[in-house]
């Protein structure tokens, strides 16, 4: 990297302040343009026909009647999306998920699509497409799918990661294992052992904005795609590969995004819209309905997890073990592997072993969901940790502090930790007034810790200085949580100018170099690094231009507080030149002034959080109410503290929904029964208390300002914190998420 990313310990003027976000007015007045807000002249309406079966062979598709319907301009099937993946197995899965090829693998799997002059005609056309199915046995439950007698979803899958190559195909695509020491020996040294099994149900990311795009393919081989996505450069690569286009000829523009949370990191509808447009010769707008979003996009894994933890009387954990089974939909994934890596990452363990199994089921293809896989693992582990603390008779916070990982600890997933923040979050929780607040009857308090990796990635940024001295910042990471404000603060900080003079935009794929997606909590971490680098490159140009204006050597010009200063007594009569003054003369000193940066941001650093939650349970109905919730998390440096708090609160709110209500419910026929927000209940404002936050700032040594990613970790502890709170309120250990009223009542009745 041509840039030194090390933390410099500087004092800040702009970073750390809380200005109004640049996209705020547009969003509250309705002017902001989301995926479905874009239109092109002559555009058609795209609609997708989806499988009503969980698992079936497609024996024939007859589209002839639909094609003859007046107003229909194109009908496509998998035949219009030939396999161009060239042996890339994961892209083949994406292609098959976009449009079924030979078999449908879940209720909602796309089988055909139409483009017509209006929505009514498109809907009529879908009804005229005749699909002949041979229904196959299906399986949707993770434990059932692992049984030898379970229906096979893909007979070409043989379990990876086994010592001996299996001879029979299986629904288990991969076994992964992590850990160190000898757990058998460790359990031998334990005075107390807790061993429990847990389940979590499948949830959807629940973004408010459905998937939406407008595709326009020209006869000259160029194409445009307007789309709601977390990563338009990645969408360009995927779509170009799947449609046989040259990436440079496909311009993808990202819209504002009404939530993604990992669910908008790979393509679903976009290749279909492009294929329709290519066939019809006109632009095609394709917007998923909410039902389609539930049936065919997202969701996260359903899981089944066994945990065993042993400790001595003094509270030292001697061994920890977990077996984690995660659904990945009908395609291979790495979700259990991530669960196995994160499960015990908060703790200092001499003996630890985790085993993950990736399990195929007839459900939609699993997509990432905010710190993917970690919340379920944390639910199981943190529940067992709480129970073990109780058995030993030690305070659960003290128990965690005693066993918390620290610098020099070998992480359960392998490497030795550098400086980390789990200890400070636990100490902050211990001293937080929330922990001492009184509780009434039927109320319980729970707390839990969470871990997530965070990462950086490929990033490219342009910074252009106008002749009036204002600054345009073009970034390639989609703004999912206020990053345009944060990055403007960073540019202002580095240049030494006011925030109001910087305008950040998310540039399209033809205007900027490649950027990885906004995922892995990388948006502000990576793009702030690239913005600092671009600003420093622009400052080099500004110094050079000032030197020309003064007619002195550039080495005698320094940049301080937003202005060029001639260094040395011999220049005593030269007044500093402001950025605005230098910009005004740019046409006569060499032309436009700009700074560019392309880099790979690595060294994001791992992230920890501790959450505290108070819950009231109605023992008659099993209904729950969250009374109070506190999030404590390390941000490294909060560039815009309000948006860091927003990330903390958002993760907690989603975790609360996941813990208490959200759940995919399948019928015996393998069809999803609650594909809508009436029956799949996400929390609304009236369900939530004000979520309190405490930002800790332990600088990341691998970022110039000390910034860490903050977007994902906040969803890791809530399932466990809430389960511990409910368990403490009702006196029964809750082992199945979501803890919906019927499930709480059933647990109470089972306990007698």
């Amino acid at each position, binding site marked *: *990297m041509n840039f030194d990313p090390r933390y410099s310990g500087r004092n800040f003027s702009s970073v750390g302040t809380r200005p109004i976000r640049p996209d705020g007015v547009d969003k509250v007045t309705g002017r902001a343009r989301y995926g479905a807000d874009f239109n092109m002249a002559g555009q058609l309406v795209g609609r997708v026909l989806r499988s009503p079966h969980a698992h079936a062979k497609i024996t024939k598709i007859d589209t002839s009647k639909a094609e003859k319907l007046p107003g229909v301009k194109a009908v496509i099937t998998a035949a219009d999306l030939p396999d161009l993946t060239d042996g890339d197995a*994961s892209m083949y899965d994406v292609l098959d998920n976009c449009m079924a090829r030979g078999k449908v693998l879940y209720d909602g799997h796309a089988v055909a699509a139409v483009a017509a002059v209006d929505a009514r005609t498109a809907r009529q056309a879908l009804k005229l497409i005749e699909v002949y199915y041979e229904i196959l046995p299906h399986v949707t439950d993770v434990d059932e799918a692992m049984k030898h007698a379970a229906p096979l979803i893909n007979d070409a899958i043989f379990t*990876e*990661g*086994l*010592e001996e190559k299996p001879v029979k195909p299986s629904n288990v695509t*991969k*076994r*992964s*294992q*992590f*850990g160190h020491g000898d757990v058998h020996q460790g359990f031998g040294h334990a005075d107390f052992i807790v061993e429990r099994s847990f389940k979590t149900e499948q949830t959807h*990311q629940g973004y408010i904005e459905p998937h939406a795009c407008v595709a326009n393919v020209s006869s000259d081989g160029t194409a445009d795609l307007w789309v709601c996505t977390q990563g338009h450069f990645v969408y360009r690569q995927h779509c170009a590969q799947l449609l046989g286009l040259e990436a440079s000829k496909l311009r993808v523009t990202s819209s504002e995004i009404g939530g993604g*949370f*990992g*669910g908008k*990191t790979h393509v679903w509808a976009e290749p279909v819209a492009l294929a329709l447009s290519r066939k019809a010769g006109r632009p095609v707008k394709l917007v998923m309905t909410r039902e389609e979003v539930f049936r065919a996009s997202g969701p996260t894994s359903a899981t089944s997890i066994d945990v065993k933890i042993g400790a001595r009387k003094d509270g030292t954990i001697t061994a920890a073990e977990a077996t984690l089974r995660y659904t990945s939909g009908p395609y291979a994934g*790495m979700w259990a*592997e*991530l669960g196995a*890596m994160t499960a015990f990452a908060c703790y200092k363990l001499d003996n630890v072993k985790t085993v993950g199994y990736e399990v195929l089921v007839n459900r939609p293809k699993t997509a*990432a*969901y*905010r*710190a*993917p896989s970690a919340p379920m693992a944390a639910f199981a582990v943190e529940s067992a940790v709480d129970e073990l603390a109780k058995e030993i008779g030690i305070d659960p916070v003290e128990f965690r502090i005693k066993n918390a990982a620290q610098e020099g600890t070998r*992480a359960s*997933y*392998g*490497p*030795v*930790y*550098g400086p980390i923040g789990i200890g400070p979050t636990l100490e902050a929780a211990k001293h937080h007034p929330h922990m001492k607040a009184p509780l009434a009857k039927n109320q319980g308090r729970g707390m839990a810790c969470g871990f997530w*990796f*965070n*990462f*950086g*990635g*490929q990033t490219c940024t342009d910074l252009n200085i106008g002749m009036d001295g204002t600054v345009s910042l073009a970034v390639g990471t989609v703004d999912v949580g206020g990053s345009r404000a944060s990055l403007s603060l960073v540019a202002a900080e580095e240049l030494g100018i006011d925030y109001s003079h910087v305008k950040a935009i998310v540039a399209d794929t033809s205007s900027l170099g490649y950027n990885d997606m906004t*995922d*892995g*909590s*990388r948006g502000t971490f990576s793009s702030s690094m690239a913005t600092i680098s671009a600003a420093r490159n622009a400052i080099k140009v500004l110094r050079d231009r000032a030197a020309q204006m003064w007619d002195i050597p550039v080495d005698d010009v320094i940049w301080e507080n937003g202005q060029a200063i001639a260094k040395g007594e011999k220049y005593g009569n030269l007044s500093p030149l402001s950025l605005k003054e230098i910009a005004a003369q740019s046409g006569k000193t060499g032309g436009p002034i700009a700074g560019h940066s392309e880099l*790979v941001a*690595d*060294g*994001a*650093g*791992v992230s920890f959080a501790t959450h505290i939650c108070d819950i009231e349970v109605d023992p008659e109905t099993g209904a729950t109410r969250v009374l109070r919730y506190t999030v404590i998390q390390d941000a490294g440096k909060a560039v815009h503290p309000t948006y860091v708090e927003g990330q903390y609160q958002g993760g907690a709110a989603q975790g609360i929904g996941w813990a208490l209500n959200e759940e995919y419910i399948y019928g015996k026929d393998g069809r999803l029964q609650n594909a809508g927000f009436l029956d799949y209940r996400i929390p609304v404002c009236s369900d939530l208390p004000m979520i309190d936050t405490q930002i800790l700032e332990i600088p990341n040594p*691998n970022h110039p300002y000390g910034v860490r990613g903050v977007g*994902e970790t906040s969803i890791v502890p809530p399932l466990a914190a809430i389960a511990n709170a409910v368990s403490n309120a009702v006196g029964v250990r809750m082992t199945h998420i979501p803890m919906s009223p019927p499930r709480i009542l059933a647990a109470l009745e089972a306990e007698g």
Partner: protein
Amino acid sequence: MVEVTLWGSLGTAAGGKNKVDVEAKDIRELFRKLGEQYPGLEPWIDRGIAVSIDGVIYRDTWSKELPQGAEIFLLPRLAGG
């Protein structure tokens, strides 16, 4: 020469070894030599492997140097939301 620790499943692909010695100055050379010495690792390298150097995880900086004596740990390439 650096000692490289492989996570469980990767060790299986390397013939059951969980630690290997490789003469490599940076991540790029490490992957090239691992592929040469243990052909079973090539498909894994193609799919993406992250490298932890003294606890800091690198996914894409193949030019990153591997300091003598550093703890080098290979991990699955991470996904995020």
